[in-house]
């Protein structure tokens, strides 16, 4: 067995161990910390699979933002953690384990018998890429070839924000989202919240702009922006906006609305919904990407911040 495979075996085992830990840990907070490490290790796997764009997304959203969200929830539910959790009986658990092992074995058998040679759309995607003016095939798929998926996913983001906000108590509508750790801090958090945002802003915009040709894109860039905003809010250096603020609502739908408008315009000028005329493809994609980035950054941060809650009079 070569060194390469040993390394991959190690990464795979670490991924499985952290996954098992986040299921088996007694304390939910530890389980969540396990889940965050799991996400980081999984990003290494994505790198090994030559999927840099996915690795960036996994590390930013799958591990980072999801981790923040879960840590906040675990901290809030800590008081409810009972010492002894009564799990189902041994017999039931064995049955569940057998059923799950069966599913894993079936999936593993599928992996081992995947068709040879593997079907691929890589050549087609690469052939059609010059027409979009982009150099990164993954972004070509996201913004042009499968633009419909990307449009719907933006709608899902906005809908889930509507869902989260609908959980606000009646008085909450006049309030602001509750922050995860609402304390003013002049220590490390305050220092980072003062120094990191300019760099984060630059990095976020760089990821988005460079995403046209290199790994990265509007998503990964927007996640960095969202993280910077959350950092400022968590350090108490800024106020979360009131959810009834008009600019907030306009910004939350600006991305999907522009996307939809460009898509509908495509019916007239390029002959199909979400089609771009070849001469202006790059410009139109940028026109969609900029408001989309704003919307994604805003909605991601607001999803982590949670529903608005009544605030005491200031």
């Amino acid at each position, binding site marked *: 067995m070569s060194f390469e495979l040993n390394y991959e075996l190690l990464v*795979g085992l670490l*991924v*499985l161990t952290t996954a098992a830990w*986040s*299921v088996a840990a007694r304390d939910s907070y530890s*389980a*969540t910390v396990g*889940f965050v490490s799991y996400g980081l290790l*999984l990003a290494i*796997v*994505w790198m*090994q*699979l030559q*999927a840099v*764009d*996915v690795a960036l*997304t*996994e590390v930013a*959203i*799958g591990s980072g933002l*999801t981790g923040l*969200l*879960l840590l906040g*929830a675990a901290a*809030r*539910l800590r008081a409810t953690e*009972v010492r002894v*959790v*009564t*799990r189902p009986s041994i017999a039931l*658990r064995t049955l*569940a384990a057998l*059923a*799950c*092992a069966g*599913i*894993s074995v079936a*999936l*593993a058998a599928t*992996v081992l018998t*995947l068709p040879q040679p*593997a079907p*691929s*759309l*890589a050549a087609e*995607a*690469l052939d059609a890429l010059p027409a979009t003016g982009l150099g990164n095939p*993954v972004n*070509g*798929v996201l913004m042009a070839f*499968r633009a419909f*998926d990307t449009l719907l996913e933006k709608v*899902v983001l906005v809908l*889930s924000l509507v*869902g*989260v906000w609908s*959980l606000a108590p009646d008085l909450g509508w006049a309030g602001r989202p509750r922050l995860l750790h609402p304390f003013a801090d002049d220590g490390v958090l305050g220092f980072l919240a003062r120094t990191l945002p300019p760099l984060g802003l630059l990095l976020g915009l760089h990821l988005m702009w460079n995403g046209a040709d290199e790994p990265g894109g509007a*998503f990964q860039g927007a996640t960095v922006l969202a993280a910077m905003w959350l950092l400022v809010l968590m350090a108490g250096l800024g106020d979360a906006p009131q959810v009834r603020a008009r600019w907030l609502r306009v910004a939350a739908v600006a991305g999907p609305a522009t996307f939809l408008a460009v898509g509908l315009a495509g019916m007239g000028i390029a002959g199909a919904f979400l089609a771009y005329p070849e001469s202006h493809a790059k410009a139109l994609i940028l026109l969609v990407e900029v408001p989309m980035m704003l919307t994604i950054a805003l909605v991601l941060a607001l999803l982590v911040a*949670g*529903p608005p809650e009544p605030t005491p009079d200031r």
Partner: protein
Amino acid sequence: MSPTTLYGLCGAALVGIGLYGLLTEPRLLRKIIAFNLVGSGVFLLFGVVARRGADAGLGGDPVPQALVITGIVVAFSATALAVALLLRLHETGGGVTLDDEAESPAAERSKP
């Protein structure tokens, strides 16, 4: 065995681990975490299909890779909604576990 196949088996195992947590863990927050494990296992299987489809000088087939990116964002949206529901349930005095033995705050309050 190629590294890609190895990670494919890893993805298959992740789905099993996540499902087991989803079935046997009574705490709702833990069910959300387990559900995310199942999801990322499925994404990993997609990643293996993408890697196997490496062609035309690319490291992998960009179509499944783009689908996974979309999937990760949708999974995050669903998780955010689930966590918000859970916290609201907690605030309104509902139990945050399906464990019958555990005393929920509501049950404690209703005691004489």
